[in-house]
């Protein structure tokens, strides 16, 4: 019996990250607290190396390996690159915060890299089980990260909640997958798609499985009615971890939906479209309305996330290439804004003080006009006001939904975003119109200051020149789905 050696090239970035994270775990054992920065540096080097490998192994046509269980296509390369950037930025933003709170330990970085590995596997999965494996790797790392601050009862509670609900969602997902397996006889995404396309599977079983799959997906995305965990986890987790959860995992969740619904279950588009419509409307409604009542900025941004995920669904449910690339554009833009928004919360926090309340932003324009301006850009971008990039994200998903004929849905989305504009404006009001409550100077570290400025200006620059990113998304989607 011969065992054919699989082609490892498509999976090279994953292998590299795995090797590096194992190395980091070992090296970290021998480092004293004083030299811990080496772990941090190694983590950043890992991200850089992974990016280099991803770019250099990029090919125009999809490459399959491990018996077609794993795929390396244009979409996966773009999404992975964006995930590296997001994780790298998150780590820079978090560094000061975590070292002030005793979390600057090897575990934090190892868990972050494991989570990244999980995302990469999800992004490249072409098989239900691989997808599930990646998801679990990501989720388990995140549960641990939330609970990393052991003495904090709030964080522990949040981790517990996240874990219990997350496990439930994973269960739903697995159940749905097993139904699909029963109906189609395969777990391979391409084969499932073919079977459904030729409508040889039992439609009732398929739809039944689909419902569970959509429920599982909805939980991971955090859309209504599976959104309960988002506000609690976002608020309870240490802000650095909230920042992490709110960034790269959203990219992975996007890939998750693409692989499962679009590539695997395209034949059932009529069925899942309706479900997504309901979830999109509810998310936009509840996310935007409930956010108004929040006084904690992390919780407010959590509800804002829910509404953004509702917008994201608008692209998917239009069921066209145009729609998918719009959604991809939306998720990348969302990550850019969300990293900036939570990053500002980290920037305002200091030793022994968490800038968690909206009031902590009062008078920021008088304390630090530049950062107030950055936050203004993030907030207007989230509200979708030009000339920030958030506007184009909304424009592209709205046009996709309108092209698919969902006029009433588009009008509803627009109305909810007016409601949403209110709470973003409130932050700007606090920063610009009110007097500061305390005058403690805000002195971010040099790298964070530069990166935050870049982040804010990127929101503006992409708002003036959105074409490159849009073209990149269109390219990635077209190359992967045709």
């Amino acid at each position, binding site marked *: 019996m011969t065992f054919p050696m699989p082609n490892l090239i498509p999976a090279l970035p994953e292998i590299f990250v795995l090797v590096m994270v194992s190395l980091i775990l070992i090296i970290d054992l021998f480092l004293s607290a004083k030299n811990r920065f080496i772990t941090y540096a190694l983590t950043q080097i890992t991200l850089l190396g992974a990016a280099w490998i991803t770019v250099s192994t990029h090919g125009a046509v999809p490459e399959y390996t491990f018996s077609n269980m794993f795929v390396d296509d244009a979409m996966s390369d773009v999404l992975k690159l964006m995930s590296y950037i997001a994780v790298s930025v998150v780590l820079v933003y978090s560094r000061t915060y975590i070292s002030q709170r005793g979390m600057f330990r090897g575990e934090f970085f190892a868990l972050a890299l494991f989570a990244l590995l999980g995302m990469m596997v999800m992004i490249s999965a072409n098989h239900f089980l691989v997808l599930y494996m990646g998801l679990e790797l990501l989720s388990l790392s995140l549960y641990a990260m939330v609970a990393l601050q052991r003495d904090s009862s709030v964080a522990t509670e949040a981790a517990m909640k996240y874990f219990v609900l997350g496990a439930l969602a994973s269960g739903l997902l697995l159940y749905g997958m097993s139904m699909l397996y029963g109906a189609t006889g395969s777990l391979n995404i391409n084969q499932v798609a073919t079977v459904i396309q030729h409508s040889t599977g039992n439609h009732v079983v398929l739809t039944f499985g689909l419902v569970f799959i959509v429920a599982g997906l909805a939980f991971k995305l955090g859309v209504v009615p599976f959104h309960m965990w988002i506000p609690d986890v976002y608020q309870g987790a240490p802000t650095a971890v909230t920042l992490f959860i709110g960034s790269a995992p959203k990219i992975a969740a996007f890939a998750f939906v693409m692989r499962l619904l679009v590539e695997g279950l395209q034949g059932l588009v009529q069925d899942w479209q309706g479900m997504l419509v309901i979830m999109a409307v509810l998310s936009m409604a509840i996310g935007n309305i409930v956010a108004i009542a929040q006084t904690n900025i992390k919780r407010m941004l959590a509800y804002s996330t829910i509404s953004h995920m509702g917008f994201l669904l608008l692209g998917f449910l239009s069921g066209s290439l145009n729609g998918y690339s719009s959604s991809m554009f939306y998720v990348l833009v969302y990550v850019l804004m969300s990293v900036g928004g939570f990053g500002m919360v980290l920037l305002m926090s200091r030793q022994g003080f968490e800038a968690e309340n909206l009031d902590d932003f009062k008078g920021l324009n008088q304390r630090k006009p530049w950062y107030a301006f950055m936050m203004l850009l993030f907030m207007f971008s989230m509200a979708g006001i030009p000339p920030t990039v958030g506007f184009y994200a909304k424009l592209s998903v*709205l046009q996709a939904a309108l092209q698919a004929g969902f006029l009433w849905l*588009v009008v509803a989305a627009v109305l909810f975003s007016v409601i949403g504009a209110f709470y973003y404006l409130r932050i700007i009001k606090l920063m610009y119109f009110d007097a500061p409550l305390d005058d403690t100077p805000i002195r971010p570290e040099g790298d964070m200051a530069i990166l935050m400025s870049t982040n804010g200006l990127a929101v503006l620059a992409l708002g003036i020149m959105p074409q490159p990113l849009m073209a990149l998304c269109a390219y990635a989607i077209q190359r992967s789905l045709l």
Partner: protein
Amino acid sequence: MSEGSTLLSWVIWLPILAGLLVLATGSDRNAQFARLIALIGAGANFLMSIPLFTGFNRLTSDMQFVEKASWIETFNVSYHLGVDGISVLFIILTTFTTLLVVIAGWKVIEKKVAQYMAAFLIMSGLMIGVFSALDAVLFYVFWEAMLIPMFIAIGVWGGPNRVYAAVKFFLYTLLGSLLMLVAFIYLYHKSGGSFSILDYHSIQLDLDVQVLLFIAFFTAFAVKVPMFPVHTWLPDAHVEAPTGGSVVLAAIMLKLGAYGFLRFSLPILPDASHALSGFMITLSLIAVVYIGLVALAQSDMKKLIAYSSISHMGFVTLGFFLFSDLGMEGALVQMISHGFISAAMFLCVGVMYDRMHSREISDYGGVVNTMPKFAAFFMLFAMANSGLPGTSGFVGEFMVILAALKVNFWYGFLAATTLIFGAAYTLWMYKRVVFGPVANTHVEHLTDITKREILVLGLLAVAVLGMGLYPLPFTEVMHASVNNLLAHVAQSKL
């Protein structure tokens, strides 16, 4: 002469760049420097915009000074600029007003000077962008971006209730704009993937679609104009805004809404415009008569002028929906004239507010005794506001009333009541504030206007009188474009 010119881009981006430069001067220690840069920027921008007017070919209705470059290929959006005889006038009005605002805020604004000046310069560039955009997305970007500096201007330098006013202003306008965006997206798909406004002028649309689109555009533009019954944000915003903010709001931002009707509603949706003209005329007449009466009851000067603005803008929308060249040109003249007069009125109130910190009419009385020069200027503008012949206020109103009379006697009759109400509320306010014995010690200690204020009010006085006595240069520029627009409106798209 206009091909290959980048003048329009310069006129848009120069104030924005100047604004960023002003912002870079930082804190109030460099305030004088910030003021100087702002003045140079605004002055240069005004001078730069003059060739748009002098070099404008008055014989054609084509777009001039056209610039076109690909911008967002994915959605076929282009950076497409151009002006016709209608928009060119508003560009000049914008650069002129911005210059006045910078001079008027010279001494008055003492905190965050750089941010104040920058907000108005950037706003100026964005508003010119709205007037010259020929691509729907570009138009929308300028249209919405403009809200940001205005929101900040009202919220930071405004009166006691400024936060409420700023948020109300923003959300009101945002709601309307977003529905307009949906209409743009619809037209984009309908036209087979084009965001060019000129392409929209020639696509066929069913009547029910036209009516829906008309409603979407109506919410955007009626809020901005503002038309009755969505006018309630304006008095709040005006009262709380700093003087510069009120001037820009009244002189230019309100015109943007009216301009939107001309650029989108009328030529793209001619059948819906005709079908709904009765509705539009009714709303306009309500604004003219009812809001005129509301103005009569105000005790706050700024509020009174705000209501008077709404009433005067009623004339503009009335003129548009009469579909005659006299009405249309009258409405346009009224827009320009109102730009000058409302700016002047708000500046006059600003002059008094800076000295007394009160806008209440009852706090004043006998101002003429202490500020005779000011009283003379204020008199001129009050007369212009009530539509006295010889001032610019008369020309537009008279043309619209004549046009209305031709269509229906009662339209003309109701519109003409403004000559009475307008005179009543303006002159009554003037009488109570300026004439009579000195009311209190505060008024007694008033000092007359400075040279800087004379310069600002003097420039406006020249404009008001010039346009009133010799309106030909203005109507001549717009003539070809108005006829072209009327031809579009007359052509059914069914």
